[in-house]
């Protein structure tokens, strides 16, 4: 039962405690807040959708016996060597620098064990990462930190990063405290300085240029590797169509809930659109061009469970990508080393202090003492367990809807719980056949 203050103290809705604290901080420091993790505001999302399950008109599959396949192939459009994944969950690009080497190795090992891919990030490819991850996607980012044609050729796919869901239109920041000698060396920059990654590519602007850039990358890699184009969710209808026109094999769409290692809070919370409407718009754009499933769609931003994966696939994605959730599986925000959370001004469950380099659980740090808290073997086991659980959840839902392959899930299997979600996802409001905006 809520306690009523006898003095009648009433918090302001416009100025709640966290807003007051932020104004006080800004007045004190004169600079915007930079932080990691992703958006913290409530947003319409996959929780606002439910599956209908089987009934008289749909036959379910036996939950523990009948096959429900999960394999996907990415890059079938132009590449001579598409990527074969055993599960439709990949690991998103996260840089060595933002993450420590142990975290990158743990991710690589888990991906190899599960038959899926991991992705490099700003700063280039590390040897540990290449050795541990059997299927590795190499990002070509605006900064071109660590960009190397030898690494390009030994990657399994290439991902041209146009934008990121946490900050579409912005480049990254890696604050000086995380720039060790090794990180600085890989990026050709002095040790200890704040590194601001560029927001635009240095040698192309616009979709016509991008088509030529993709041609160059294919020439350099013998037309073997799938070329992904990653976009932040801002104008998916146009961006997806332009990426298709430019020659992408795969489009990676990162919604507003996607994470970051360090960006302005105002960017994270106020730029871009949520994953739910972005995914619908992207699928519609692919369908309008008659390339849905020919150009594969990987969606990321707020994927946490097998249910989220199932809903993304049912809306038309070919696979999903996780970043923040993978970090949580490695121990992010776990209630251990609590005193170290408190030392950087936070608590387990609230931490978004990736930018400080003082990660209490050793995931987003270059500090040798902190990093030693995450052993690659242990981290790989945790992430493998988590991915396994997600796949079991995904198959549970797929079988309940009568699907023998998870890619057979479809919009008709779902209903929306809110008017907003119905409008954004293009899924009928539960108990009706009504999709706002469609009659």
């Amino acid at each position, binding site marked *: 039962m809520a306690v009523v203050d006898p003095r009648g103290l009433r918090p302001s809705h416009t100025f709640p405690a966290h807003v007051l604290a932020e104004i006080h901080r800004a007045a004190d420091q004169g*600079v915007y807040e930079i932080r990691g993790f992703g958006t913290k505001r409530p947003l319409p999302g996959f929780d606002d959708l439910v599956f209908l399950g089987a009934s008289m008109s749909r036959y379910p599959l036996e939950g523990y016996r009948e096959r429900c396949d999960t394999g996907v192939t990415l890059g079938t459009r132009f590449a001579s060597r598409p990527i074969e994944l055993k599960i439709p969950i990949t690991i998103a690009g996260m840089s060595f620098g933002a993450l420590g080497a142990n975290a990158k190795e743990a991710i690589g090992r888990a991906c190899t064990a599960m038959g899926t891919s991991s992705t490099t990030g700003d700063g280039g490819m590390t040897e540990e990462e290449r050795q541990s991850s059997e299927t590795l996607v190499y990002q070509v980012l605006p900064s*071109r930190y660590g960009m190397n044609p030898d690494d390009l050729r030994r990657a399994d796919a290439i991902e041209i990063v146009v934008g990121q869901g946490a900050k579409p239109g912005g480049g990254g920041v890696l604050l000086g405290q995380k720039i060790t000698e090794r990180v600085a060396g890989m990026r050709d920059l002095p040790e200890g300085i704040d590194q601001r990654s560029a927001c635009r590519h*240095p*040698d192309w602007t616009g979709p016509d240029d991008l088509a*030529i850039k993709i*041609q*160059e990358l294919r020439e350099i890699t013998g037309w073997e590797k799938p070329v992904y184009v990653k976009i932040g969710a801002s104008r998916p209808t146009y961006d997806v169509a332009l990426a298709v026109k430019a020659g992408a094999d795969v489009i990676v769409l990162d919604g507003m809930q996607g994470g970051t290692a360090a960006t302005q809070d105002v960017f994270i919370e106020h730029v871009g659109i949520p994953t739910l409407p972005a995914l619908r718009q992207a699928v519609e754009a692919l369908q309008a061009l008659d390339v849905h499933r020919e150009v594969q769609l990987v969606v990321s931003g707020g994927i946490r469970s097998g249910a989220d994966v199932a809903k993304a696939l049912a809306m038309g994605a070919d696979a999903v990508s996780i970043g923040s959730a993978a970090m949580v599986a490695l121990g992010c925000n776990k209630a251990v080393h609590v005193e170290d959370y408190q030392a950087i001004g936070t608590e387990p469950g609230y931490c978004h202090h990736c930018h400080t380099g003082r990660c209490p659980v050793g995931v987003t740090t270059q500090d040798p003492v902190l990093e030693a808290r995450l052993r690659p073997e242990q981290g790989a086991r945790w992430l493998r367990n988590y991915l396994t659980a997600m796949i079991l959840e995904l198959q549970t839902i797929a079988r309940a809807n009568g699907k023998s392959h998870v890619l057979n899930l479809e919009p008709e299997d779902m209903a929306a719980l809110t008017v907003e979600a119905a409008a954004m996802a293009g899924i009928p409001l539960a108990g009706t056949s009504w999709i706002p905006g469609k009659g």
Partner: protein
Amino acid sequence: MNTVSLSLTSVRELNEQLRGAPDAGSAPGWRVTDPKGAHAVAAGLTGHVQVQIDGHVGYYCAGMNQHAAITVDGHCGTGVAENMMSGIVRIRGNASQSAGASGHGGMLVIEGNAGPRCGISMKGIDIVVGGKTGHMSGFMAQSGNLVICGDAGHDLGDSIYEAVIYVGGSAASLGADCVEKEMTPKHRSRLQDLLSRAGMERDLDRFRRFGSARKLYHFHVDHADSY
């Protein structure tokens, strides 16, 4: 000399032949004719081959070059020698925007003029431009040397890190955190070496040196108007 006409051979076939070619020395060089503005010509070469291209090329000629010596007897489009790692690329004519973008090593020589953003994001490459450059050249340049024998356009060296820029003419304006620095005997010597390797003779006394003021290396509220 092996001669390949791009009227008869595709860029893809040409690049495969060049990548499979034995290193120069006893091996003959390559002559490419009729490029007609084709993109990605001689991109991604990895060996010590010598390639002469007769005519104008499109985007990303000699992109990500490793070891090869490539000469373009003509003009070139956007991003010539982008992300070049080593070797030497020489353009007898003019180069469009983003020449040598994010180059990690080797030398890019542009005997004519270069467009905007020449040397953008450069990471160790040496670039020598015989003529002038467009705006925002040396933007976010991290390391290496950019020699501009003529005039530099607006916002030279904006947000520059540790790269060094030499300008023989005038600079229309300097970008954020870019300042003029003393031309020491050490820098004169380096400039002379760069010009010699580029095959250019210039009066060293005309050149000025520019680099980073290093005021933006860490955020400081008093520099907020520069961000």
